[in-house]
């Protein structure tokens, strides 16, 4: 069985012949293939870590030809900058197959089957048939041990049903069967492009989150037109600028790499919309170009550098309210140098930052070697101290301060047995009333005082004798026993 992607040298061939010929490898850069993700490497380290994924691309975004060093050396050649602090990653791996570590890969391909896909090309085949051929080539190198791919048609009818029922094939035969099973475009089909993007990303995110460990994800959208939704199509389909915003936001927030492919007549394709949805937009007008673009997409999915870096902050709470700009830098031993643009990791606006996942076993081992387990007592104790500190403050404000501010309301109160408090006063209650004081309850028997003064001290000889009163007792009511 073929490996989906072989050595990185093969990549260069694809990319160089493809889109941007003649571009120097020296002008390449690291491009984020996923948003920076906060991961937990507990118990190796309590520090929150960031997992970063990159493609090495040239200035135009095409994959670069690189002989990447083994993983143990790659780590030493990478540097990251988190919030202007330079930090070397404790783990780095080039996921390009060929003996390197390959983790899971998930791809969702959305294929436009609107009526215009029936237009014939110069080759005599329709756009739809050409797309099917290109897709077959895409799954040609399917690696059943790591790859999962779903090929889903969309137009403007039953969009949600079709996309939500996507099945991620684990076998090449199943993937090819999905391509074969794509329905022939109907003449009345329109293009619910924006809705397809949003729904597709939901399905992809669900699939990724159901997979343990870190997997590489990508969504490919292939269309020959623009978002067109008319009466008679599904209700509630996204349209207009709001729909475009929703689609672009879905791509941005999911973090998954999205590639848009425009196929057919450039005049009929809404290039601006596709570029807004994803920065990675490619145009193909014939079969060869389309196949090349699919090869290119496959390369971007399969050839990624994953770097995991421990943040300079001791715990997750320390990231509250922060925006962390992240950049990466790869210096190869042959002198070539690749830098990434800055991408910002955002903490939630109100809540505490949450982890996007956990480090896998390899990352945990690497973290243990480089950033051994460390934990400060303050990290554990700080939230407890904060809670008790603020709690105590509130208790003081609740129980003590009011006694100072509204002291008259608290004088002479005592707790009663049934809960709550009662006031008592002396026999001088009437007098108090006359003096403009508030009336209060009479004091319980035995507690009477003179004008609210204290009780006179008891003499040592005084005794309290309790006289039982049986007058109300049931004993009294018993008939006399003879």
């Amino acid at each position, binding site marked *: 069985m073929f490996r989906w992607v072989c050595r990185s040298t093969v990549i260069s061939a694809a990319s160089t012949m493809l889109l941007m010929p003649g571009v120097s490898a020296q002008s390449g850069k690291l491009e984020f293939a996923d948003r920076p993700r906060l991961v937990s490497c507990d118990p190796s380290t309590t520090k929150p870590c960031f997992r970063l994924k990159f493609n090495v691309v040239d200035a135009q975004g095409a994959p670069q030809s690189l002989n990447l060093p083994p993983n143990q050396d790659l780590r030493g050649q990478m540097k990251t900058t988190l919030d202007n602090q330079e930090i070397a990653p404790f783990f780095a791996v080039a996921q390009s197959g060929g003996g390197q570590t390959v983790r899971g890969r998930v791809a969702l391909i959305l294929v436009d089957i609107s009526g215009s896909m029936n237009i014939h090309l110069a080759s005599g085949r329709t756009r739809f048939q050409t797309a099917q051929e290109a897709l077959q080539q895409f799954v040609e190198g399917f690696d059943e041990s790591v790859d999962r791919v779903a090929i889903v048609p969309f137009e403007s009818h039953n969009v949600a049903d079709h996309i939500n029922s996507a099945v991620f094939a684990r076998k090449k035969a199943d993937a090819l069967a999905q391509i074969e099973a794509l329905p022939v475009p109907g003449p009345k089909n329109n293009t619910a492009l924006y809705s397809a993007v949003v729904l597709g990303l939901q399905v992809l995110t669900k699939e990724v989150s159901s997979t343990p460990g870190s997997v590489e994800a990508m969504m490919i959208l292939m269309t020959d037109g623009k978002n067109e939704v008319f009466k008679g199509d599904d209700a509630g389909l996204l349209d207009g600028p709001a729909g475009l915003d929703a689609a672009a936001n879905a791509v941005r927030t999911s973090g998954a790499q999205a590639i848009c492919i425009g196929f057919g007549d450039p005049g009929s394709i809404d290039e601006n919309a596709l570029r807004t949805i994803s920065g990675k937009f490619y145009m193909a007008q014939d079969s060869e170009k389309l196949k090349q673009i699919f090869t290119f997409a496959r390369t971007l999915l399969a050839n990624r550098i994953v770097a995991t870096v421990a943040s300079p902050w001791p715990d997750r709470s320390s990231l*509250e309210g922060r925006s962390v700009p992240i950049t990466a830098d790869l210096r190869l031993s042959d002198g070539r140098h690749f830098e990434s643009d800055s991408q910002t990791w955002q903490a939630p606006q*109100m809540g*505490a930052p949450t982890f996007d996942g956990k480090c896998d076993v390899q990352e945990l081992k690497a973290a243990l070697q480089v950033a051994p387990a460390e934990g400060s007592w303050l990290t554990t104790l700080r939230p407890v101290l904060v809670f008790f500190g603020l709690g105590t403050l*509130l208790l003081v404000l609740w129980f003590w301060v009011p006694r100072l501010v509204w002291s008259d309301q608290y004088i002479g109160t005592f707790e009663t047995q049934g809960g709550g408090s009662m006031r008592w006063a002396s026999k001088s209650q009437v007098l108090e009333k006359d003096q403009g004081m508030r009336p209060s309850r009479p004091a319980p028997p035995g507690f009477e005082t003179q004008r609210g003064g204290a009780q006179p001290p008891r003499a040592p000889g005084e005794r309290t004798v309790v006289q039982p009163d049986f007058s109300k007792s049931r004993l009294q009511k018993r008939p006399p026993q003879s």
Partner: protein
Amino acid sequence: MSLYQTLYFMSLVGGMAGLFSWVLVALVSMVITNQPLWVSDLVSATILGAFIGGLTVGFSDHWSGNRVLPRWVISGLLIGMAAGASAGALQIPITNNLAQQAPVLTRLIAWMLAGSFIGCGLGLRWAGVNPARVAHAFAGGLIGGALGGLIFAGLSASVPDLSQALGFVVIGVGICFGVTLAPILLRDGVLQFVSSGDARAQSKLGRTHKEWEIQQGDSYVIGSQSQDLSRSRYRPEIDVFIPDSAMAPRHAILLGKGGRFFLARHPSASDQASLARYQLRVRGKTVVTSQELRNSDDILLGRTALRFVTRKDK
């Protein structure tokens, strides 16, 4: 409880709600993984709304002297939750579009949205008395949210945990302070408890010098009906509750209209039998239908004496 005591303690209730919310948010955030950024905010605002809504209703009813009904506390909790969740949901597009360019502003907006929406949810309770209270509560929550957001954004880098906890406490204090302060600031009159021949009323209302703020446009039902008998789901049917056995369940209505205040018998206590049984006097004269109130008027309802004070003709 006097107006300023109510303001003070309600603010503390808000702070308490904020602190409990923070604890729960911290626990929940340990469980949430692999979710978009907005999920944490949505959960935080929802929890905050639930705590503030539930505790505010509970304590407010407790201090009114009436029974605390679990039904109303749950209603307050659910309305607070819904308000918080709405704020969290509204924040999603703002975060998506603005967070990268203006992170501090986005944070402030998130806190202000949460504060104002939760405040608005609380204000709904008094919408029946005066719809303007919803707007007052909204404004109060907005200011509280802004203060909480400023603390969170300003201190988070230097004092983690404390910044968020303090932010939650301040937003809670702010919301409840705003909700309670607005009617106090805007009051046109005050109904003061003087004394009562009923020991229960005297005990509940006398010690704390209970006062009720009155606004123009408001309509208050005064009575002795326990909340147990109330059929409403959120707001009390009796606005001025006095547990005096000599008072009718719905004894009188106090109206503020056209810059003047009127005290009228409640229609349910206007029949002949009620006229004979339930006393309603203003300045010592029995009120049969309605009577305009003036500053420092003494009112007798059943065996309870109240005083009406207004700044209108001071």
